[in-house]
């Protein structure tokens, strides 16, 4: 009997490998399950839903949720196109947090953080992320993960009784949990690719999301992404993920990226998101992001101003010159951000260029008389005039 069980397990394992390869060789197809019914509260899944319902209730009142009806409706519509029959169950929350993150709870609450929205270059990239999260939702991964954690926690408690050997065993259990999570990520990637393709987006943009993130992570001095971010402990390593998605893109060609539509719905929020971004103090990552956006020609004056800010705040050798160049370019642009003139003034003041500093500060106060730092800047003008 035991031999039969082993054989059956082996076959199941092979089947999953074959299925995995099939995704890699032919255009994927996916049959989504029917809409989910609310599970019984006495089950583990019901408990998880109830917990997420409480979380959602708190989130609805949170001042961190963006109250931008235009953008929220836009993202909700996008999620509906991807989720198709599950659309009525998906509820979007855009949360003001500068990190890259999105998550979908089993009850249909989909959170997207503004750090992620800032990094999206077009609608297709956002569709890739939402499609991925819907993939988790449709496969009920969070319930599977809850059950996995519970069983591993029980195993870990038993292993803890066995001293050092037990501790090593606990580590193995933890590593197994990460591997399990990575399998879910692969599956969600494949489903997400299928959903975005079906909705008319180019799948190659999903690979671009990870490629861009990888560039930022690598910008951190001397660190590989797998060491620098906890995200990559539970998620497949980006190069692997990017390559898998690029492979899927070849199988599902075509689509339109919706770059202009995305820009139209987000441009008015970029300033706030960029302010939050530079407060992270991750200057190397921010420089990669901003340089990419400048090269792509999106809101170039604003991006140049913020790249100048990053250089000025980092303050390494040569940074003030780089900041100066960006401030000047931003100030000479079609839509110069008023603080670009303050930036010119601050750098000029440090260089001892009094007249230039005074004129730039005066221009800043002309354009932004109610700026929070107006009193300080006015004191600089007085000091420079004396």
């Amino acid at each position: 009997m035991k031999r039969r069980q082993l054989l059956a397990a082996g076959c199941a394992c092979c089947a999953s490998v074959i299925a995995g390869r099939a995704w890699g060789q032919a255009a994927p197809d996916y049959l989504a399950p029917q809409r989910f019914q609310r599970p019984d509260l006495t089950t583990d899944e019901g408990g998880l839903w109830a917990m997420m319902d409480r979380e959602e209730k708190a989130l609805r009142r949170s001042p961190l949720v963006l109250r931008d009806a235009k953008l929220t409706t836009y993202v909700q519509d996008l999620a509906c196109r991807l989720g198709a029959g599950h659309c009525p169950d998906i509820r979007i929350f855009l949360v003001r947090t500068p990190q890259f993150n999105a998550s979908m709870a089993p009850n249909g609450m989909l959170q997207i953080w503004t750090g992620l929205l800032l990094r999206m270059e077009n609608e297709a990239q956002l569709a890739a992320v939402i499609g991925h999260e819907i993939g988790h939702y449709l496969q009920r991964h969070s319930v599977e993960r809850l059950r996995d954690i519970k069983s591993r926690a029980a195993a870990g408690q038993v292993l803890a009784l066995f001293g050092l050997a037990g501790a090593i065993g606990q580590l193995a259990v933890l590593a197994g949990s990460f591997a399990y999570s990575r399998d879910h990520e692969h599956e969600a990637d494949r489903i997400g690719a299928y959903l975005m393709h079906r909705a008319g987006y180019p799948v190659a943009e999903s690979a671009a999301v990870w490629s861009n993130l990888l560039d930022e992570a690598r910008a951190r001095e001397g660190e590989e992404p797998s060491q620098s971010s906890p995200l990559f402990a539970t998620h497949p390593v980006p190069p692997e993920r990017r390559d898998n998605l690029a492979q899927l893109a070849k199988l599902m060609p075509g689509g339109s990226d919706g770059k202009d539509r995305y820009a139209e719905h987000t441009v008015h929020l970029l300033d706030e998101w960029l302010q939050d971004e530079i407060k992270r103090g991750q200057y190397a990552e921010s420089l990669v992001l901003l340089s990419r956006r400048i090269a792509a020609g999106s809101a170039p004056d604003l991006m140049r101003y913020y790249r100048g800010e990053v250089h000025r705040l980092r303050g390494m050798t040569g940074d003030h010159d780089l900041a100066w160049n960006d401030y000047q370019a931003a100030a000479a642009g079609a839509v110069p951000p008023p603080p670009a003139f303050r930036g010119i003034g601050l750098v000029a003041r440090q260089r001892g260029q009094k007249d230039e500093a005074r004129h730039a500060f005066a221009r800043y106060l002309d354009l932004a008389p109610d700026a929070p730092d107006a009193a300080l800047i006015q004191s600089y003008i007085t000091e420079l005039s004396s």
Partner: protein
Amino acid sequence: MKNLLILALAMLLAACGTVRKVESGANLVGERMSIKVDGNWNHLDFPGIKPAQIWTMEGVTIDELLVYSGIRDGQIMHPDSPASEKRKDFVFRKTMQTEEIVSMLEGVLSRDGSTFKLRKLEPYPFGGRKGFRFEYERVRKIDNVQMRGVGFGAIDKEELFALVYQAPRLTFFPRHQSRIETIAKAVSIK
């Protein structure tokens, strides 16, 4: 066995941090900054908060006064983990201008995902030096509480001295703001 339990408990408490009363009157913080307080202040010490001290009246989840005294060039602000210490997320530099110091403090106060909105930044004599004062609003990520804050600072002999106070914008901040302004006015730097 009992001794082992006591030792384990002591180690646990040491890891969590310590609390001690701040005496009314003048308190020397570091080597050069003297702060005169009245009322029931407590000083908390726990990992990740250095080089600041945290003082509180209502309890640290409600209000906190961050005290920075004699921060030197190159010193890392609040390294919350060995990784962030290595990355040097927020470092004080002696050449920093006022805006850069305030940006650094903004970064420190929003590193947990909280939002920070600067409301006012103005010149202010602090500790008898040419310094600055700023006001801000913050939404604390962990519990969505809307806070208000006020900060004061100056650089003297290439070292940073600063006070930053924050509390929920309703009730607690208005209750203590004038007390904080009085404390800031009375700060002296040797």
